[in-house]
């Protein structure tokens, strides 16, 4: 025991790196399909709202993330857009993060092809403009003025999908997929509460706990948290995707960290009791 403790305390961290790599890689190479995924109320809150929107009504989507959060929010985006297309909603998308525009295009195109939806009629991508707060206010005041052209350069006034929507006042529900700021909080403060619509949140794990107060006040109707939330949404749609596939890796990774924290504290506790 005595020889083990100092060795453990000064363990080369590259050994731990290796363990992490294996814990994540193993389920990729050999999927375990671990059971136990259950849908939480917070995720259902978004699903039910979209389910309740009448076909043909607009759904605003904001892709406020960049490639750094792709594994968490890309599957979520795909699931939401699929759901919207299944319900024949008109998807109006935008992005407050400049490097998110490419991912948004990719998600919309992939899901659009899958459901045979036509750009301009069934979905529109407005794109990105600088000054996120002003973009939200601008959409609330006058969509056509803020985005005279969509991301592909079309005149926004001429797009059929935007006929019924001239500002955020014509929107009843939006889903914001956010990795930080600008994101959910900005959409609530400058968009939803000012122009009178509801928000469903999709958030990375890092910011999700911080958004819970909005869930309780009803400023958010629901909250999809991280890859786990995305997997739950995929389960609701009965269409498993990349998030569901990632659950095994997360399971093993988490258990590894839990063991490490416990082991470390036990070792620390023993070392403090050892004489000398």
């Amino acid at each position: 025991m005595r020889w083990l403790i100092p060795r453990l305390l000064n363990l080369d961290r590259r050994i731990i790196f290796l363990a992490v790599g294996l814990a994540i890689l193993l389920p990729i190479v050999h999927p375990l399909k671990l059971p136990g995924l259950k849908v939480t109320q917070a995720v259902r809150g978004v699903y039910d709202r979209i389910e309740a929107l009448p076909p043909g009504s607009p759904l605003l989507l904001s892709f406020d993330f960049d490639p750094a959060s792709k594994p968490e929010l890309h599957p979520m985006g795909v699931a939401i857009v699929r759901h919207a297309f299944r319900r024949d909603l008109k998807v109006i998308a935008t992005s407050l993060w400049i490097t998110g525009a490419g991912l948004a295009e990719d998600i919309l195109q992939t899901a659009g092809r899958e459901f045979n939806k036509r750009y301009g009629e069934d979905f529109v991508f407005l794109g990105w403009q600088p000054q996120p707060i002003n973009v939200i206010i601008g959409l609330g005041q006058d969509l056509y003025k803020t985005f005279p052209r969509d991301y592909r350069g079309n005149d926004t006034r001429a797009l059929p999908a935007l006929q019924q929507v001239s500002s955020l006042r014509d929107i009843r529900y939006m889903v914001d997929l956010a990795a930080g700021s600008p994101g959910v909080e900005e959409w609530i403060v400058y968009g939803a509460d000012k122009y009178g619509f509801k928000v469903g949140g999709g958030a990375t794990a890092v910011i999700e706990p911080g958004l819970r107060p909005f869930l309780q006040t009803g400023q958010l109707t629901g909250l999809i948290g991280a890859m786990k939330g995305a997997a739950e949404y995929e389960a609701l749609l009965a269409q498993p995707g990349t998030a569901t596939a990632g659950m095994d890796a997360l399971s093993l990774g988490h258990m590894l960290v839990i063991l490490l924290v416990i082991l470390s504290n036990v070792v620390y506790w023993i070392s403090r009791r050892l004489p000398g």
Partner: protein
Amino acid sequence: MSKRDPSTALLGFLFTPPPWTRVALLPLLLLCALPLQAATAAAPLIPPQDLHASDWPGDTGHAVYLSWKVVPSDSDAIEYVIYAADDPAGPFPEEVIRIQGNERHLPAGKFPFWAWPKRRDAHVVRIETIPARESREGEEAPRKAPLESGKPYYFKVVVTDGVQRSESPVVSAIPQGNLFNWNRLNNLIYTVLFSVLILWFIARARRRDLYLRRIPGLDAVDEAIGRATEMGRPVYYLTGRNSISSISTIAATVLLGEIARKVATYGASIRVPHTDPLVMAVCQEVVKQAYTEAGRPDAYQEDINFFVTDDQFGYAAAVDGLMVREAPAACFYMGFYYAEALLLTETGASTGAIQIAGTDAEHQLPFFVSSCDYTLIGEELYAASAYLSRDPVLVGTLRGQDAGKALLVLMLMLGVLLVTLGTLFGFEEVATAALDPFKVF
């Protein structure tokens, strides 16, 4: 988690009176109902009473409302149908809206008591669109035209039970843009109140010294520096990765002055690795000044502050390397940090140094708290710097914010008390109305 919206209690009250009124009013209702029941069979429907149309207050000028009295014969068996025209003589071609006799407010919106007295004796209907005169060919539903600001509109209300009809006289209203939204009066009051609080406290702090409590984390500083002196090992001080204009970096430079002064007094040594040349320039001045104040200008060296690199993980890796080699006795992490915080504190902890952090980076705080011996959380960092610098703007702002917090605490306690007692004794309506000033409309 269940959500209890106090307004649902209010709406419930509007449509179904609470139990105590039921008991009290029962005999009265019976008295009224008896002759009425006899009357309804024979007499014609009563046309809407006291009908008037007005501009909807506090809007851009595209809505009006109609209101008329509630009569005992209102029930779900009858309907009120509203017709509109842009000429007093009509025609009144299409119906605008149809509501049931027992509906009171449309829409069932929430309004504060000061802007909209909660009248239980009237039907109120908000109108934003009327049927357009010319509807395009081939369209199924009649087109709706929004009301235009400044143009007179004429309305009449017809009450019907499916067989009989009874018409009201024509009334008119002109929708107008308003200059003040009374629903937001409370918000304006808070804006003014907060402005006065902050400005007043800053002005006061300029005139005299205001009290701020000592931040307990500052006591840990002495211990850490004492330990460094004993062990003859350096103290590391990091100022975060934000630019010099951020509040947390400014706070970090203020604290650096204090810590450098103690280090100089004790005769220990300090190292400050930098990631921003501007912050470094400021810190050089700060440390020099501190050494002079401590009476040890001779001990000051230019390379106490040194530039490492401006890239995120590169900085962390280089500082980690230095820490491992020099085994500091104490590490201070003040200011704003991003994801590199994890790398820094991990290595710091593994060298066995006393670690003291102070940051307002909410996402990094968990990692600081679990790997440092003491952490100044969020505003505590500003408070520590205000406490040390005695800068009137900093101190005044903190005191002003404290007053704001005290106000919020009072609002919360009062609110919870009112709602709880209201639920207990059945006066939810009064309780929720009393809480209107704390709400958004």
